[in-house]
């Protein structure tokens, strides 16, 4: 459910810091119909060209200022992922995605107030890195 909300089109880009490409970033809308604290994100999974990104390489943020690992996010109740606003997901991987075309798949799952299983959304996109 909510697959259509996952992985905002044209949002996947390499991230440069101090002249080095430290990884890549993508954005997603929420797999729910309301905003929730970040602690209610059950999991985020990224697959690049069929290969799963290790969880420890993923960072998430709602404002691109403060970033959390997935383990840290489990206790983050003071930052809210708003409905209609993106979650920024960074994959830390020196060099980022190489120039050319890649298949990037994003899986987002949130816990909801009354449904016993997390609401998961999945979308794979073809991404071109210039």
């Amino acid at each position, binding site marked *: 459910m909510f697959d259509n909300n996952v992985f905002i089109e044209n949002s996947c880009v390499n991230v440069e810091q101090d002249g080095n490409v430290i990884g890549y970033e993508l954005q997603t*809308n929420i797999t729910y119909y309301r*905003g929730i604290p970040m602690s209610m994100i059950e999991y985020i999974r990224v697959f690049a060209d069929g290969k799963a990104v290790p969880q420890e390489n993923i960072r998430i943020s709602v404002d691109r200022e403060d970033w959390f690992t997935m383990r840290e996010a489990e206790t983050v109740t003071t930052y809210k992922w708003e409905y209609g606003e993106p979650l920024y997901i960074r994959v830390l991987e020196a060099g980022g995605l190489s120039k050319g075309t890649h298949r990037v798949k994003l899986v987002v799952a949130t816990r909801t107030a009354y449904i016993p299983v997390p609401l998961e959304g999945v979308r794979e996109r073809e991404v071109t890195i210039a």
Partner: protein
Amino acid sequence: MAKIKTCVSLYSLQDAYLNKRMQLDDIMRFVKANGAEGVEILPDQMLKGAPDISEETVAHWKQLLDETGLKPVIADVFLNTNLYKNRTLTHRECIALLVKEIQQVARLGIHLIRLVSMVPYWVIEPLLPYCAQYDVTIALEIHAAMAFDIPETKAFIEEMKRVNSPYVGIVIDTGIFCRRFPRVVRAYETLFGTSPQVFDYIDTLFARGTDLHHVLVENGHVYPPELEAAIQSEHDRMFVPLCDGYENYRFEVLDEYMPYIKHFHFKLFEMTPEGQEYSMDYKGLLEYLHDRGYDGYVSTEYEGNRFTLPGHKVAEEEQVAAQLAYIRKCLDEIQG
């Protein structure tokens, strides 16, 4: 004589909001332009920072109410019992969250809260002093698959009757009054791999005046042979439990609850070209409610948006407008 009034839940326009086709201002003006008298909001959906909204957000909301003249009827509130991954919130934490919600809706000029289904009964008594202080009523949603036969709902209703306070009641979602399984759900789900045989079987249940939820309950959650025969794949087997959210109660199930009903969600899957909703008999229900003196709001809640086929427009505005027009016509005929 008291009259039933129209309302729109902003849930109905969630796709337009998410994809930035409409801002809250546009949505409020749209609701007013289509003749609704009231508005229902999910603070967590369209008010940033809820339940800790800023003074600017409150002022903006009030300015929109002033401009449109819409009555702020009800706020849909959730209880994040699973805020943390490793534990469930304690009772005191749950109460504290709900007190914040009561305080928030009071700031928004709203006096009624829809508590999401499955909110536990034990929140009622500790919240009552806050309800009285802020003049806010709490009402549990009675939603298909989580309706009158579910232990959590039964416990809430029992406690509601025990405390017998004007500040506690229920909200009815008309998805419990489906006379046919929504064909938009069938079309969407078959596209994504569910076998038509599953829906053919469910259709036979509705034709017999029942539904999958009640058949499964009567069978102790063992699938009847006809359902087993309809299931063609593992995907079908995974999907079947999601089909119990469409129930086929008689209107008379509400008889004993009428004094406690504070609000209705007039659930909407598909307004047909003929004018009615595909699954639900709104006119019959409005006649039933009119005969029993109901004078609250009936709120448009469009849920066909999530079953829009790929490549098709999400027709939220059209569907909301069509339902409002149809309800208005019914009410004119019934109420004069």
